[in-house]
């Protein structure tokens, strides 16, 4: 006779140490749990709701400037350090952790328009409308207390006076060169008082310059004649010019994809280009309702942040048509510069209201140390949310953002305008001979030509 009994081996059920978790035995037979899809859907929905509840992106504001913040740069070698320059010629080094000024760099007579730090984080380069380029030693404030260093003035290592006012500066990644732009593009060496190279293509002012972090010899500029120009230092010549219908205020290279860059355009959109195929944008990122003033890529290369004249900061996916996040506060005015922190966790914005603002890059992320179980849980919720993001309820909740009224109105107005334009175009097309009006895709529409 066979007798069935429940038997348990004691080995399976005894812990080796008292700290060990009790083992949980589960039967993973899918037939036992037929509702798993429903359960996970509900979890996704709840996770989406919770994400909305916990979305508190604003970390803090840093005040101290007495004029609008015109430019910022992050210290590539030190996570906490960020430099900001203002329209009154003040340059400050901030400690992000304490949200306090560490030290100031006085000297500029006019507005500071460009700031950059060498890759080793030792040298700060600033330039401005007073036609000077100044090189500063970055103080090692890690050992100093912030109070005593804030008082003493820092003296520049070098001041180079040049022929024209400067609009921007950027440092080569890992190299010894930096480029300033203004009436022309100048390449400088740290140790030379005059530019080692000068480029001029077209007569208009160059507004922004950005070196490619992946390919240190490559850089791009955008000028007020609505063009984006690529340069190659190896050939010491410009490479290609792209003329769009409106000006680009700033641009940023993707640090993880050296061929791609994104330009912040006046026409409220950002355009991502492959530098090898400039005849069409790879992606048009729209959502802002006013000119985009600055753009900066996350070091992960998966998203970038934009600051706009419409008083908002938005975060886009590198391939997303629409923003995935919008940050705004009542007091934040026109945003002139934005930066992603070097670890991709924070976003810093500098605006007309003389403040720098620190935001979380993921609005609902929990800061601080997470227990492994907490982290796993969060990962699971994120995964589930990602899985069911296409279902209408989840989608609606995840996409919902509260907008300030003026922006909401401007967006609706913009939408109607675009719609009207589209309708008009459609009618024109209907009334013209077939083939006489070729359809131009949206990604090409704003490009006038590519100049060799």
């Amino acid at each position: 006779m066979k007798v069935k009994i429940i038997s348990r081996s004691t080995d399976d059920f005894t812990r080796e140490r008292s700290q060990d978790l009790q083992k949980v035995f589960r039967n993973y037979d899918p037939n036992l749990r037929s509702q798993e899809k429903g359960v996970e859907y509900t979890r996704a929905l709840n996770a989406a709701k919770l994400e909305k509840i916990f979305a508190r992106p604003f970390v803090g504001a840093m005040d101290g400037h007495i004029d609008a913040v015109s430019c910022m740069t992050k210290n590539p070698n030190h996570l906490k350090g960020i430099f900001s320059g203002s329209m009154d010629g003040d340059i400050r080094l901030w400690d992000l952790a304490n949200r306090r000024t560490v030290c100031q760099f006085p000297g500029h007579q006019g507005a500071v328009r460009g700031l950059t730090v060498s890759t080793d984080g030792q040298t700060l380069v600033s330039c401005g409308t007073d036609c000077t380029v100044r090189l500063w030693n970055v103080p090692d404030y890690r050992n100093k207390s912030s109070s005593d260093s804030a008082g003493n003035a820092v003296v520049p290592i070098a001041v180079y006076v040049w022929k024209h006012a400067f609009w921007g500066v950027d440092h080569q990644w890992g190299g010894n060169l930096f480029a300033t732009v203004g009436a022309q593009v100048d390449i400088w060496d740290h140790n030379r008082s005059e530019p080692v190279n000068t480029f001029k293509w077209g007569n208009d002012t160059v507004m922004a310059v950005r070196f490619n972090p992946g390919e240190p010899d490559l850089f791009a500029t955008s000028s007020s004649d609505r063009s984006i120009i690529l340069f190659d230092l190896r050939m010491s010549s410009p490479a290609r010019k792209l003329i769009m219908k409106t000006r680009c205020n700033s641009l940023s290279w993707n640090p993880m994809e050296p061929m791609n860059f994104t330009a912040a355009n006046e026409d409220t959109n950002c355009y991502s280009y492959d530098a090898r195929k400039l005849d069409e944008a790879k992606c048009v990122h729209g959502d802002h309702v006013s000119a985009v003033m600055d753009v900066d890529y996350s070091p992960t290369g998966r998203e970038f942040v934009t600051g706009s004249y419409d008083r908002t900061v938005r975060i886009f996916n590198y391939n997303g048509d629409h923003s995935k996040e919008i940050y705004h506060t009542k007091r934040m005015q026109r945003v002139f510069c934005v930066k992603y922190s070097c670890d991709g966790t924070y976003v810093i914005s500098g605006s007309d209201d003389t403040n720098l603002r620190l935001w979380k890059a993921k609005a609902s992320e929990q800061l601080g140390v997470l227990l492994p179980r907490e982290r796993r849980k969060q990962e699971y919720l994120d995964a589930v949310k990602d899985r069911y993001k296409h279902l209408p309820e989840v989608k609606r909740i995840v996409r919902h953002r509260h907008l300030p009224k003026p922006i909401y109105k401007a967006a609706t107005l913009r939408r109607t305008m675009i719609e009207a334009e589209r309708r008009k175009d459609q009618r024109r097309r209907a009334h013209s001979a077939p083939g006489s009006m070729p359809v131009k895709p949206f990604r090409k529409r704003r490009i006038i030509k590519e100049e060799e």
Partner: protein
Amino acid sequence: MAEKKQKTPKRERMKAYAPSKTLKFTKSMTNKKSKKAAKDGRRRKSGPHLPSSFLREFGLQKPIPSSSDKGEVEEEIEDLYEYEEALPEEETKKNRRFDPVENYEYELPDDFEDENVPSDDDEHEPSDEDDGVADGEGDVADASEKHVRMLQSITGLPAEAFKDKEKKDVTLSGVQGDFGGGQISINDLLDPLHGKAGYSKLRKRLHQLEKTPMAVQAPLPKVERDKLERKVTYEQSKKEMTKWEPLVKRNREAPTLYLGEDIDLGVHTVGTIAAEHTPRTEFERKMAALIGDPVVMEAHSKDGARLLELNKVSIEDVRDRQNHLAKMRSLLFRHEMKAKHIKNIKSKTYHRILKKERQKRASTEIDMDPEVAKELAIKQEFKRAEERMTLKHKNSSKWAKRILKRGFKAQDDGTRTAIAEQLQQHALLTRKINSMNENSSSDETSDDDSNELSPGSDSEGVFKLLNKAKDKTIKVMEEEDEMPKTGVFALPFMERSLKKQREAAHEEACLALQEYESSLGKLEGDEAGPSSPGKRSGRRVFVGAKSRTMTFSTEEPENHDDNDSEGEVEVREEENEHKVENGLSEVQIRSALVPDDADRGQEAIFKDFDDIVKNAGSKTTYEVAIFASDTWKKMGGKNPADNIKEKSAVADNLVLSSQNSVGQDDNNDSDSDLEMVDGFLSSHPKSDDYKLPSQDELIHRAFAGDDVVMEFEKEKMDVLNEENPEPEKPVLLPGWGQWTHIQQKRGIPSIITEEHEKAKRKREEALKKRKDAHLKNVIISEKIDKKAEKLHAKNLPFPYTSKEAYEQSIRMPIGPDYNPAISIRALNRPAVIKRAGVIINPIKYEDIDPYGKSEDSKEPKHKRQKKPNAKKTQFAGRKVSKKS
């Protein structure tokens, strides 16, 4: 200036002769450099020999120059010319002759032709030269004149003598210049090579070149050249960028990107922390001085043998320590012995005294510190006062109220004890008050309280209540007897009316009293009753009768002047109650009662019997129900109501009821009879002749009542109508025109009818389009389920190409409830993993095989990730082996 003039044409010639020379160095020349070079050149010229103009000036200042000197100068110029030729060309060139180039190392591709190369020299040289020549000549002429004048003034000779020489010199120099540059041909250059290897080849090529016309194309305009240059640059940088493609592709396609993994954060160990430690306090400093003592350090550094040497202690120290220890030990021993001794003492009084002493000491300690004692007392008093004020612990809290409301008994033990505890605390805190109040409080209230507080059994409580009520009514009745003898109430009519009132009240009181009595009696019976039904009934009858007789005996004198109906009713009530209990007992009651109630006459008895007949059916059933449910006490409660009803019923129809009941019985009988007959009839034909019915017939017969097909069709029609509702028929609209019958005359407006037609047509089309239009026996609902809609994506999400693929992608659950712990991590891993606070550097180039498997390329990262896991598995493996 003169030598410059000579130099330039020659260089050009050289260039023309050697066209295949690469542009290497000309290209790699910066703007700045060229400027500098130009400056240097000028400076150098002024070093060994000054330009002629300067010389002239020198000459004017210094009256030395002679013919020999001049000759020397000329010679030097010649030498310098050679020297300059040997200089790198770029150094001698003027500014802006060559394009600014930053990078020296760069080499142009081989196929780059020289003809196309823009050279500023070609364009601008001629004019420059011309100018230079003119200037130079002018300068020379000027200078020579001055010189002549100077010589004249010094020597006093006529100017012509000097002038000739000067001219000669000039021509000579010109000849020399020509000799140095213009006349040299490529053949001259080749001559020294005569007889060496490859000479013939070179000559052949030279001949060929000479034969073909040497037409050099005109250089392209600068704009074009720039464009070409940019094009090349762009192509080059494109190529550079393309090399990143596989890397970028890999990163994009990777399910998870690990960032900032390669950075070593430098985990703190105890060693590193200790090394960073700096002593701050005095003690720490002392310790550090001791520890950091070089002698000790040295001792530690070796095998530690030296430590032993350092550890030497003097004999005196050791002896002292031993002595000290011995003393302590003896003291301890003595103490122990003493304690033992005390413990051994058996006298209780001694111990009591001891204990008292100890307590006294403790109390004196409190007493000694009067403030502490006072505080304690104040605290205690405050607590008491608070308790008196708030009655916090007397079930006044929300929680306690709620519990009491729900019933104390319904709570679990824990709550009950908690409540009890609270009450006890209250008692403790208010004890003093109670002890003080006890004298003043009346006995009654305390009694009442005790009665109320002690719940006892329900019946007991009821019993007491009834008793009390009875007492009170009796009291009232006694009081009422005393009438007021004076005042308005003394008037005769008032007296009469009062008496009437009193009588009415008395009657009522009596009634109430009787009721109390009866219920009391019943209660007693109930309490006594639970043994066996037969016995119980008998005993109750006895008790009931006894009690009733007793009451009647007391009341009889008063009752006699009133009519007897009440009493009768009372009796009947009693009887009815007993009837309820049991039919048998009823009879007994009757037999027992009849002799007692003889004076009441036959009527009452008859009435009773009627009652019995009338109530029989219902009562019995009721009884059964009661017995079944076994609820005794409920019945007692219900009885009075029953009785009242019965009273009225009895008063109204005595005979009618009995008749009715009889009639009912008859009816019932007849019914049952009919049924019987029916059953018999139906069974009859079956046995007669039986034929097996066909299947159709059976089905037909089975569904004889319901027309399924019709029903289905109707249902389908309903569904159709619901999903595509029929348009409403246009009717005359109330409103304009209705009053004057214009609408009726004209009929319904055409628009409305047209619309109706359209809607009809639309509906028909919609019906035709339905999936179940041609399926006769099927209803396919086309209604959209809104609840289910929520669970479907509206359109196919982007990366998926088919519905199946998408559904497949979300088919398997990823949660920890459905997957083993090993696979959860992989299932839920986010797209980008980065560590907080770690700076992520931009991408670095690494060679990867674009056609290789992505797995291989990712391997190093995964390895890093899996290291701890691997360790764990090893560890687990060991564990397993141990167990087995």
